[in-house]
């Protein structure tokens, strides 16, 4: 008795622990991605996202503006100003040569060549003096500053605007939503027929569907494209259209959709369907009024799978839509950014986060159906 209960509780602990670990493994990178995407791009390039809340030490070069603003005080020409435009960072050390960028502590006065002096205060105020008037170029000031954390939506503004992510976002939705709805609808009809209608050749059809499950997508991609182009040509439809990719995703998604939904629908209690038949319902009535509402968990869970797969797909999109600016989907856009802006982490993180936003929303909205639907489908 004692051993069995302690065994059970240790097992529960194990389960809880693994769930916790899984959550951790999933959450940490997502959180990191999000935090990175809203950090200031200069801070992002020098420190990791986990230091986002601490102020960061930056070594910066500043050149004073063109010396129009110099004023004459006694026999000295003076340049005054502040190193920081708007932030409230603080300077810890400064210097005037790139060899010794932090030679002087703040508040002290550095003596430079030709009798010039430089003073920098902690708040960034600087004073440069010179016995002769300043000529064209401004004075370089090297300083080490502690910059407080700065969070900004600038990265998002930039990727959505100038990087064209907003357009791609719409494109991705245009591809994904019909590519999810069409196969689900078709598969539900097919699944009902394969499960509950008697007609010759039913078993053969089912076997065909199962056979299609194992056809690799890569193998059928090009023949499919050729066939589509050929047929499209005879109807005067262009080769790279949304219609094409909807049909392609529908075709690739249907076998699995039919198979899963048929198994679920075949598992519905037969007496309910017979009862409806005795009540005078036609097959279409039974499908619409009994089977569809009862299959909702299975439909929802398959929608999630199909949605995520289409949303994350790059290959089919490249083949059927190409990568012209107008129709580029998010995954394609991300790939382009990786090439052209590979060093700009703020661009990549913000783009990546926008890309996972929709899957996250779909997942959280439908997750209770996902869990329930999967269990229901597999157990029954």
């Amino acid at each position: 008795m004692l051993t069995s209960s302690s065994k059970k509780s240790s097992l529960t602990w194990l389960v809880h622990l693994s769930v916790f670990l899984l959550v951790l493994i999933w959450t940490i990178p997502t959180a990191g991605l999000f935090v990175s995407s809203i950090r200031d791009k200069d801070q992002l390039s020098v420190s990791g996202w986990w230091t986002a809340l601490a102020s960061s030490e930056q070594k910066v070069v500043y050149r004073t503006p063109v010396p129009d603003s110099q004023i004459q005080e006694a026999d000295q020409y003076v340049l005054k100003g502040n190193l920081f435009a708007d932030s409230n960072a603080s300077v810890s050390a400064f210097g005037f040569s790139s060899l010794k960028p932090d030679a002087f502590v703040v508040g002290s006065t550095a003596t430079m060549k030709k009798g010039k002096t430089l003073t920098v205060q902690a708040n960034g105020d600087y004073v440069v003096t010179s016995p002769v008037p300043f000529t064209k170029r401004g004075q370089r000031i090297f300083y080490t500053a502690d910059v407080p954390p700065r969070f900004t939506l600038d990265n998002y503004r930039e990727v959505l605007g100038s990087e064209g992510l907003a357009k791609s976002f719409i494109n991705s939705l245009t591809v994904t939503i019909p590519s999810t709805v069409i196969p689900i609808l078709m598969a539900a009809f097919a699944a009902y027929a394969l499960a509950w209608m008697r007609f010759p050749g039913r078993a053969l059809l089912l076997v065909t569907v199962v056979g299609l499950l194992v056809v690799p997508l890569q193998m059928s991609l090009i023949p499919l494209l050729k066939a589509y182009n050929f047929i499209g040509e005879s109807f005067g439809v262009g080769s790279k259209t949304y219609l094409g990719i909807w049909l392609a995703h529908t075709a690739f998604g249907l076998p699995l959709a039919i198979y899963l939904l048929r198994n679920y629908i075949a598992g519905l209690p037969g007496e309910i369907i017979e009862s409806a038949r005795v009540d005078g319902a036609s097959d279409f009535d039974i499908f619409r009024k009994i089977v569809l509402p009862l299959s909702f968990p299975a439909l929802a869970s398959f929608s999630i799978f199909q949605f995520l797969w289409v949303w994350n797909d790059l290959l089919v999109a490249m083949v059927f839509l190409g990568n012209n600016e107008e129709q580029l989907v998010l995954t394609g856009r991300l790939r382009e950014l990786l090439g052209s802006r590979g060093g700009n982490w703020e661009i990549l993180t913000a783009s990546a986060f926008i890309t996972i936003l929709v899957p996250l929303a779909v997942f959280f909205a439908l997750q209770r159906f996902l869990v329930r639907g999967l269990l229901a489908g597999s157990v029954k």
Partner: protein
Amino acid sequence: MADLTLTNVKKVYANSVEVLRDINLDIKQGEFIVFVGPSGCGKSTLLRMISGLEDISAGTLEIDGQVVNDIPPALRGIAMVFQSYALYPHMSVYDNMAFSLQIAKENKANIDKQVRKAAEMLQLTPYLDRLPKALSGGQRQRVAIGRAIVRRPKVFLFDEPLSNLDAALRVATRMEIAALKEKMPESTMIYVTHDQVEAMTLADRIVLLSNGNIEQVGAPLELYEQPANVFVAKFIGSPAMNILPVTINKVGSQTNLAIDATTSVNLPLQLDKKEEGKKAQLGIRPEDFTMTALHKNDVLISGEIAFVEALGESTLFHVKTELHDELVIAKFPGVWDIQRGDALALAAPAEKLHLFAADGNNYSQ
């Protein structure tokens, strides 16, 4: 109006298993017919063939004189109540009952009237808005019955409607079904069960099936008193009838049977001369035994008591005899002070004895 006739009906499933063989049956309008038999004997199959959910492999089924073999279930004028209730789980009680009428596109007011009438009859009015999952087993069963009633069918079909209920509820619902039949005397009802008590209490006529054959059709007491064969004799009545091997000694105005070397008994039965000397089977119901003493000459069977079941209202004695291996069961009302190991002598009135031929058929028919 709703007579039902089955002629030479057969059922063969795709795997060529013959589940029903040559069923002939006439059911009159307003009858309460119960199909009873052991599990797997084909009761449900027969009922489903009548409903149209299962094809009829051979023979004809007529409802009101019209052959309906190829008519779909909904057009046969039948309604069916399933063992699992088969309620639509996502619809309220009201919608469950209204479903068939909505499919038939009847007008709303009429549907409402029918549903409320049925709900009233089955005391379901307070539950009309609930989903099936919020009902008890008995209430669910009543919804299933209500769903059948609103269709105003000519024939009601019930497939083991009580077997999912607990014992107390089963008795209560059984009485409700009997009351329902009284309220609708013109409806024909066909009821499938494996429980002989349900069959005995509900039926106008019982159809006893075994192994795809009809063993006997008749009123409940007819089956009890004049079983057509050993199978019926053993199936109806609890505990089951005792069957003893006997030899026919002499025929004539009475039939003399040898039970063992020293015991014989005379039955008021005239048999053909050619039966003389043949083996036969003597049936005695446990409740037909009387107690006697060993030295008396009306002793039919005697032996040692193997065990005693005291049920309070009656006592069952299982007696080990020298006649054959099976224990003979005797049932006496009340409580008895007789223990295991005691000797017991049993007699029985001659007119309560049943004589079956070696092949199982009753000699008196």
